[in-house]
């Protein structure tokens, strides 16, 4: 395979919370030793429950959150040690789309101002060029050129997300982190934005890290999927392989829990008990073992390494070889 666009190795993001003069505080291991690549033109899905660290992981790749240790390489260049002066150039190659398009747009700036600000910051084009480019960007995301004069509150949620996408595209990035970009949208609007992402990916050859929790959206959009739990990778495989042949009990449980829009498929399933443990006090050994229906004593002892079980398919479970998790 050709050199990946983004390469992440043993990335850790730890936060200290509750530190005072009298207390050292608690370390929260939001991301705890994650490694994966994103290929050129690839859409990689990142799934997990809230608290799994998926948002922190996405942001740390762009250094919107500083990694604690590990490596992020973009086109072969180490990102984690870049001086601030060179971060700006990096961010013209990597962009992010947020979940809530209203919270991420400045309500006092017109859409045109928001988009041309991104161009100015990166010194792209003359003033006239920029006005032209703003119009092109709006068209590219399916909005009329004339809306450049209007303000965020004049748009519906779906239109605002289109603006959020246009802003990310303004600087011509090669890589986009899309953090739950359709989760806050109405059902009938989600499909429009998913189609837009599909079109842009095809036209621009974008690589995307798509963070989400809706497994049917992930399956539809992504080439490959990484399943995250408490800051660690449980399983990674091509989308087709992961959904047809999950090898980690957590992946199976996630697939089982997703409601199926077919009333005849109402079924009794393995329901995970309880909630995600606190990332400040993760269980020993396998972090999933406290909710795993297949846990044995040995699971508490060592952190299971990610082991290759098939073509581009890796799983972190000591029982992966003996469990049959197919439906």
């Amino acid at each position, binding site marked *: 395979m050709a050199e990946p666009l983004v390469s992440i190795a043993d990335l850790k993001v730890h936060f200290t919370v509750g530190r005072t003069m009298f207390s050292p505080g608690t370390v929260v291991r939001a991301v705890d030793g994650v490694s994966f690549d994103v290929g050129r033109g690839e859409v990689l899905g990142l799934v997990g*429950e*809230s608290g799994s660290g998926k948002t922190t992981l996405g942001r740390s790749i762009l250094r919107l959150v500083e990694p604690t240790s590990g490596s992020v390489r973009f086109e072969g260049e180490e990102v984690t040690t870049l001086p601030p002066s060179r971060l700006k150039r990096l961010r013209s190659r990597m962009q992010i789309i947020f979940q809530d398009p209203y919270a991420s747009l400045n309500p006092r700036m017109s859409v045109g101002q928001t988009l041309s600000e991104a161009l100015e910051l990166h010194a792209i084009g003359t003033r006239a060029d920029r006005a032209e480019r703003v119009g092109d960007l709006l068209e590219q995301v399916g909005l009329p050129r004339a809306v450049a004069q209007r303000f965020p509150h004049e748009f*519906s*949620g*779906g*239109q605002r997300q289109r603006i959020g996408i246009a802003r990310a595209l303004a600087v011509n990035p090669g890589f986009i982190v899309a953090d739950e970009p359709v989760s806050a949208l*109405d*059902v*009938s*609007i*989600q*499909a*429009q934005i*998913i*189609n837009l992402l*599909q*079109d842009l*990916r*095809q036209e621009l050859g974008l690589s995307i890290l798509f963070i989400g*929790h809706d*497994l*049917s*959206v992930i*399956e*539809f*959009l992504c080439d490959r999927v990484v399943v995250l739990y408490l800051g660690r990778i449980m399983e990674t495989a091509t*989308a*087709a392989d992961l*959904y047809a042949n999950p090898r980690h009990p957590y992946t199976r*449980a*996630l697939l*089982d*829990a*997703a*409601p*199926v*829009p*077919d*009333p*005849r*498929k*109402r079924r009794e*399933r393995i*329901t*995970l*008990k*309880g*909630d*995600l443990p606190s990332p400040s006090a993760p269980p020993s050994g396998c972090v999933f073992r406290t909710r795993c229906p297949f846990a044995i004593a040995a699971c508490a002892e060592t952190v299971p390494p990610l082991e290759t079980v098939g073509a581009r398919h890796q799983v972190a479970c000591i029982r992966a070889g003996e469990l049959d998790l197919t439906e």
Partner: protein
Amino acid sequence: MAGTGPLLEIRDLVTEFRTETGVVRAVKGVDIVVEPGKTVALVGESGSGKSVTSLSVMRLIPKAIGGIVGGEILFRGRDGRVRDLVHEPEPAMRALRGNEISMVFQEPMTSLNPTQKIGAQIAEVARLHRKLSRADAWKHAIEMLTLVEIPDPARRADIYPHQMSGGMRQRVMIAMALACNPALLIADEPTTALDVTVQLQILELMRRLQREIGMGILFITHNLGVVAEIADTVAVMYGGRIVETAPVEELFDRPSHPYTRGLLDSLPSVDHAARAAGKVARLKAIPGSVVDPRNPPHGCDFNPRCRWVIPACREAVPPVFPVSPTHGARCLRWNELDG
């Protein structure tokens, strides 16, 4: 259950809000029937009027901003008597709320009191409506926490909402809603803020409790997967009106309103053969934006987004056509949607 007949029958309900720019009609003549022990899913997007419908049943819309301007909300109480909640005096409504009719909201943190212990909040409901003593009410609170499968309930009764996870808090909300054995539970997007694994726990819990307690549920959601899991019948709402209603299997088998059809068609599903051939897949999205209740189109509310639209759709709001004795669709072309 006392008496026979529906538990709740909403007839031609109309609810309006007064805004700076004039009166907005959020609910425009809604009919819903909830039978005892059954679940009706009310499906809709933002601005469809689904939450306003539920708040109207609870009579929780502040007079200062709006209210019910027409229709009936017939509720059969524990005593078997049918009352119209639209005209029920406020003290009588207060006696019903949290007692015979309960509500669970989407975000439990905003509906729990952050300064009061969990157990005390549940006990308060029991003390208010069932006149239990302080000690008995606390005991009842712990029983309710046990019922909703909160581990170590005696200890959990003694903590505050912020010390619990989102899923636990939603269980507490359900415990509080069920504290007085309600005949009707209104659940407004109760699992939307939760992770799928926790959502499944809550749905299974609600199903089990319904079997045991026999309450009717009006379940408001936008998620068709959740509808398929929990509903007996479905009412699809758009622009303040019910556009289609049917038993759940019939609705999924034969959606007869273009909006319902569009919602089902826009769900992501993978065409494995096309993917293997390297094609970039597209979804069948519904074009346009959800209807703006301040500025609804003329005629059918869905007509600007509808691919079956004909001139007659722009002239008047279509009536409900009987697809089957149990299935109605508010579409002139309900019988021509195939293909």
